[in-house]
């Protein structure tokens, strides 16, 4: 059943795909460079316009439904699904279907993805203006494919389609992280991102297959129904959904699979913005939100999700404190904020987590693109070689500060609203006292490292070499749009709109944004303010020298500088287990498998060497053979 909503959703997915197809199949267009960018921009721009239309449409529909509920007393479902048979079965329901699922969650997410993708592609026109045309065309091909994959994932009505797009997203991130494939570090980072996320995907595909084996369903709706009907054993359900969660852990860079995300900084900065804000890492959070009824039915699992999320948030925040590279600070802050989202989901408040995803999408894209403008201007990633850029780059400094304050969570910026919702949700959830404390500490740390980044980049320090300047309009435009979004996105949940966030989701998620106790905003604002003040005090005014501060933390500081040795641990595991196994297999191949072949060939050679002496080359010897053979035949024939 195709309705206008599903048609719009299909169009949203199709337009970036058309751009990717055009760029992929038409080499002259791809090699044209900027023209390829225009093609990609048309694709994602069209997707953006349609996604906005769809989201506003649903918003209006939700408003009508709310009125309907108030007058008639019930809420009509606003979930619309259109599918085609993919793997048809004779005389039965199709084994698998493809299609689109339109509901408030997917429409809002698609709007965010299309917006960030469009702005990033626009920004890249300026950022990558010096690239070779061929490379630029390749870049825009991957960008279009990336947008298509993520939008397809967002609208997936079932696990199987989601998995296909999930892998496509992973592939595109691999291609884009490794865009500068001539640089060994970039190639290694791309492979690392691919392998680490694949480790999680292994769990995801196992979970999907196990769920399908038990229920015969791939669809989110059908699975939620059968789980609600008690069709599955709780232990089995916990196992399978736990495996699905493993996929989200890999994709959304949760501990212990977060190690790929900081290394992904080797890609071009706009790619980092895209991966961090909208298309790659949010997929895991989106998956958990999408499959939330299943997670909610698995006993104990949500607690695990919350604990892992809170621990990830705290761990990544401490790691962000010691980075010198501005992009790595932002990367660890993404890991940390993803921890917030997951904790909110684990606390049973998907709406809060999703709201944080939306607002984070705005300000993290903003921060990355602004950082890209800085890197573009001063040609270094090291914050200690920047400083006093506020005078040379006032626009960039202004938008970066807006993004940093939003990330730190100061009112009235969007980050405050969503972080507040997350904290309230975790406070209210039973048995999550320690995760709440972790998140509260993380609020302070977040503000501290963002204050440090802002000061080191734009205010303190010695000032950069050369003459940095603000980016051209094609790069500044997206920055301003995102800055406005970072300020205003919190308005979604303000309650002043004719229709709140909660009502928009009514009937889909348990979407009432939790309200914490009255002291909670004061606590989080106080912590954030204290963190910013401490960051400024250390790095701007020099109240305490950063070196002294680091020494004060002793081994902890040194361990954080090494990433808590996690990379080293993985490397050791890789060397010990994987290379050890490979060596055993290599020995078997070299000495057993090859040995059999070598022995066979050696025997053949030796037999040949022995037999060659009878080939004398003298015709008479051969005639002897013929005569003897004839004689032998005669004897056999004439025997008795």
């Amino acid at each position, binding site marked *: 059943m195709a309705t206008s909503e599903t048609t719009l959703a299909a169009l949203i997915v199709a337009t970036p795909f058309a751009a990717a197809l055009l760029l992929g199949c038409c080499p002259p267009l791809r090699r044209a460079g900027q023209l390829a960018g225009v093609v990609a921009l048309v694709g994602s721009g069209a997707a953006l316009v349609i996604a906005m239309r769809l989201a506003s449409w649903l918003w209006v529909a939700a408003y009508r439904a709310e009125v309907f509920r108030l007058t008639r007393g019930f809420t009509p479902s606003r979930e619309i699904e259109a599918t085609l048979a993919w793997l048809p079965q004779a005389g039965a329901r199709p084994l698998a279907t493809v299609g689109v699922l339109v509901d408030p969650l997917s429409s809002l997410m698609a709007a965010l993805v299309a917006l960030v993708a469009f702005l990033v592609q626009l920004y890249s026109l300026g950022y990558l203006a010096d690239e070779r045309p061929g490379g630029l065309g390749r870049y825009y091909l991957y960008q279009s494919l990336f947008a298509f994959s993520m939008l397809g994932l967002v609208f997936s009505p079932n696990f199987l389609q989601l998995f296909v797009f999930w892998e496509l997203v992973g592939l595109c991130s691999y291609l884009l992280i490794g865009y500068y494939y001539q640089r060994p570090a970039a190639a290694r980072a791309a492979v690392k991102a691919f392998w680490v996320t694949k480790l999680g995907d292994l769990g995801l595909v196992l979970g999907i297959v196990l769920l399908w084996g038990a229920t015969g369903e791939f669809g989110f709706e059908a699975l939620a129904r059968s789980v609600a009907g008690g069709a599955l054993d709780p232990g089995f359900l916990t196992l399978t959904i736990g495996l699905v969660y493993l996929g989200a852990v890999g994709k959304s860079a949760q501990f212990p699979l977060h190690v790929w995300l900081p290394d992904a900084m080797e890609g071009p900065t706009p790619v980092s913005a895209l991966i961090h804000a909208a298309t790659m890492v949010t997929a895991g959070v989106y998956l958990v939100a999408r499959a939330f009824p299943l997670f909610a039915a698995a006993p104990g699992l949500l607690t695990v999700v919350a604990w892992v999320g809170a621990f990830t948030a705290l761990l990544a925040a401490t790691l962000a404190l010691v980075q010198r590279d501005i992009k790595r600070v932002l990367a660890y802050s993404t890991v940390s904020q993803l921890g917030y989202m997951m904790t909110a989901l684990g606390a049973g408040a998907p709406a809060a987590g999703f709201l944080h995803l939306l607002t984070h999408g705005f300000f993290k894209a903003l921060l990355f693109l602004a950082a890209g403008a800085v890197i573009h201007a001063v040609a270094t990633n090291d914050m200690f070689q920047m400083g006093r850029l506020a005078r040379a780059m006032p626009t960039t400094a202004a938008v970066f500060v807006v993004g940093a304050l939003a990330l730190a969570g100061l009112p009235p910026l969007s980050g405050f609203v969503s972080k507040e919702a997350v904290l309230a949700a975790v406070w209210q959830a039973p048995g999550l006292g320690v995760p709440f404390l972790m998140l509260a500490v993380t609020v302070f740390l977040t503000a501290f490292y963002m204050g440090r980044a802002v000061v080191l980049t734009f205010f303190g320090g010695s000032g950069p070499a050369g003459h940095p300047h603000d980016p051209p309009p094609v790069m500044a435009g997206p920055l301003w749009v995102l800055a406005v979004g970072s300020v205003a996105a919190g308005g979604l949940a303000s309650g002043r709109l004719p229709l709140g966030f909660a009502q928009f989701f009514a009937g889909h998620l348990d979407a009432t944004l939790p309200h914490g106790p009255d002291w909670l905003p004061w606590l989080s604002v106080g912590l954030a303010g204290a963190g910013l003040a401490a960051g400024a005090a250390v790095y701007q005014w020099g109240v305490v020298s950063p070196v002294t501060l680091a020494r004060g933390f002793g081994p902890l500081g040194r361990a954080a500088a090494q990433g808590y040795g996690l990379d080293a641990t993985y490397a050791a595991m890789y060397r010990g287990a994987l290379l050890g196994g490979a060596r055993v297999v290599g020995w078997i191949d070299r000495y057993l498998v090859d040995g059999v072949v070598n022995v066979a060939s050696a025997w053949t050679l030796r037999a040949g060497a022995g037999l*060659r*002496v*009878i*080939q*004398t*080359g*003298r*015709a*008479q010897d051969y*005639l*002897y053979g013929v*005569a003897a053979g004839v004689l032998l035949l005669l004897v056999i024939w004439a025997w008795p």
Partner: protein
Amino acid sequence: MLRAYLLVAAAVFAIGLFGVLSRRNAIGILLGIELMLNAVNINLVAFARAGAGLAGWILALFMIAITVTEVAVGLAIVIVIFRVRRTVEADHLDLLRG
């Protein structure tokens, strides 16, 4: 009567074969081949006389012609080999040795 002819032919064939196998000179080998062919001719004529009819005679005539051409070709080859290798010893002509 036929039996005696066949015995003579077999003896001539065996002598020819022995020559072919044992002579080291290429011309001697050709002579051996001639003997073997003539043993066949004796057989053909003997069978024709014993009742096989005209075909045996005709075939013997063909054989004689073919034998002559074969000797001509064979001797030509021997002469060419002698010119190239300066020898007609069969033991030395072993280019195909493995």
